[in-house]
């Protein structure tokens, strides 16, 4: 469980990035943090694995105050996948890359081999096992970076903009994968601008603006509220926009799921077109 109490953070340059954040993330929860650029999303999640320590207030992860432990100790529980895979890839082969963190955490060679196999398989990069990560495409590098974090099976997985640079098919695979992770009782925190992605996952959503939390609730409540959406400089999912446009016909406006939308429209057509 992650507990954030009255968190303030000011960068050494004087920029006040977080102003009084309070939030509790339960075990096994799926949370999406959204908001415009500079809202403080990444700054907030960097507190979850201790990369940043609060200027004021505190962050407690699994009963441990993040001020009191090192990043390495927290990282064992909290995996963090950075936005840009190029900021972490450095090994000669993909396999070595995935094993890097496992070696840092002192896993045994046998266990390392098994976990590397598992992670490479699950992220569909097994065929690049012996390839240099620098030779891969952007989307593949992103998946290798993801594999290198998931390999040690952290209890909490933080993903910073996971969908950037992924084609539609890979995005869908990633979505299924995240949902699957969450089904295994892992806590998943996603920082993203991608409303369509969030709409398909329907997680708990926290909207941030100016270093504060604007609203905290279910995706279908927040993404379908034009006022809130405008406040955080994002747009509603396309399917919601259609339903908002058709509200005069008496159709519901809180629809974010494509399948649900199809069902509602079919019902509507059945009732009104004879």
């Amino acid at each position, binding site marked *: 469980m992650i507990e954030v109490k009255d968190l303030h953070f000011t960068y050494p340059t004087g920029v006040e990035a977080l102003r009084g954040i309070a939030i509790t993330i339960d075990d096994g929860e799926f949370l999406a943090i959204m908001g415009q650029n500079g809202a403080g999303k990444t700054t907030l999640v960097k507190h979850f694995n201790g990369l940043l320590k609060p200027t004021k207030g505190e962050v407690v992860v699994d009963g441990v105050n993040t001020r009191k432990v090192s990043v390495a100790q927290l990282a064992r529980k909290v*995996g963090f996948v950075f936005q840009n895979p190029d*900021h972490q890839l*450095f090994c000669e082969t993909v396999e070595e890359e995935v094993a890097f963190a496992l070696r840092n955490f002192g896993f045994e060679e046998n266990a390392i081999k098994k976990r590397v196999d598992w992670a490479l398989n699950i992220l569909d990069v097994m065929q690049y096992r012996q390839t240099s990560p620098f030779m891969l495409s952007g989307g593949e590098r992103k998946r290798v970076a993801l594999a290198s974090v998931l390999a040690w099976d952290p209890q909490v997985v933080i993903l910073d903009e996971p969908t950037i640079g992924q084609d539609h098919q890979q995005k869908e695979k990633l979505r299924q994968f995240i949902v699957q992770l969450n089904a295994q009782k892992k806590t998943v925190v996603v920082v993203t601008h991608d409303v369509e992605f969030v709409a398909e996952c329907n997680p708990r959503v926290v909207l941030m603006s100016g270093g504060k939390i604007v609203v905290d609730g279910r995706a279908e409540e927040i993404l379908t509220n034009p006022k809130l959406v405008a406040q955080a400089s994002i747009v509603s999912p396309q399917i919601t926009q259609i339903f908002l446009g058709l509200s005069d016909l008496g159709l519901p406006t809180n629809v974010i799921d494509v399948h649900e939308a199809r069902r509602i429209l079919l019902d509507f057509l059945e009732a009104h077109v004879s």
Partner: protein
Amino acid sequence: MSMFEGFKFRRVSSAIHRLDPRVKFFFVCVLFVMAILFNKLPPLILLFFIPLPFVFMAGVQREWLRSMRGALFFAAIIFLFNFVFTYFYTQYPRFPSASLLERSSAMTLRFFVLVESFSVFFLTTSPDHLGLALEQSHVPYEFCFAFTTAVRFVPVLADEAQTIMDAQKARGLELERGNFLKRVRNYIPILIPLIVSAIRRSLELAEAMESRAWGASEKRTNLYVLKLKKADYFLASGSVLMLIFAVYVWLFVPVPSLATLLGFS
């Protein structure tokens, strides 16, 4: 990273920021030469104080202090090496003399003077001005461009190094763990992504520039033309006088050590 902070330009305006970059650079070079000419503590202490009025007039005290703090680590190494090696080569096994201590301090202070003067220059000169200064000193444009780009990318790379460090720490890398060799090796996961991304960035920049017709015209003109003003002439002549004075002292006046000045020896 704190040492880089001391070289990061912030866009503010002050009498020092408005000085002609060529003159400012000449002034810094004069300081540099003077710091190299003398190896006794009293003149170096004097030299250390010369750029201070500039720091205060430009209002960059905080950044300047940060660069000084950043230089502390290297300064400590310089002091230690000077002290230890000179001691073992010349005085061992006698008790280290005061002059040895003074000499090592002087070498360390010399380093501070060098860092200080260049820090003042970079803190108060925008990369654009720097490029202009080079161009109008008839340095070929390609070189000027390469130089200003390099300067401009220092803070960008410093930020990137920080992100990379965060990313590797998040994968359990502990930079401070292990003996000296292991610690050096710990930096490989930082350096490789940094170098790779710098190369990638430069290639992208080259493509982006070429697609905007970089180098299409042989003779470039500039919107702004640097012109020397009163203050510039003042600083330039001051620098020349300082240099002449320093060379004169260096040639003809025996510079006393601090110990002699204070009457210890």
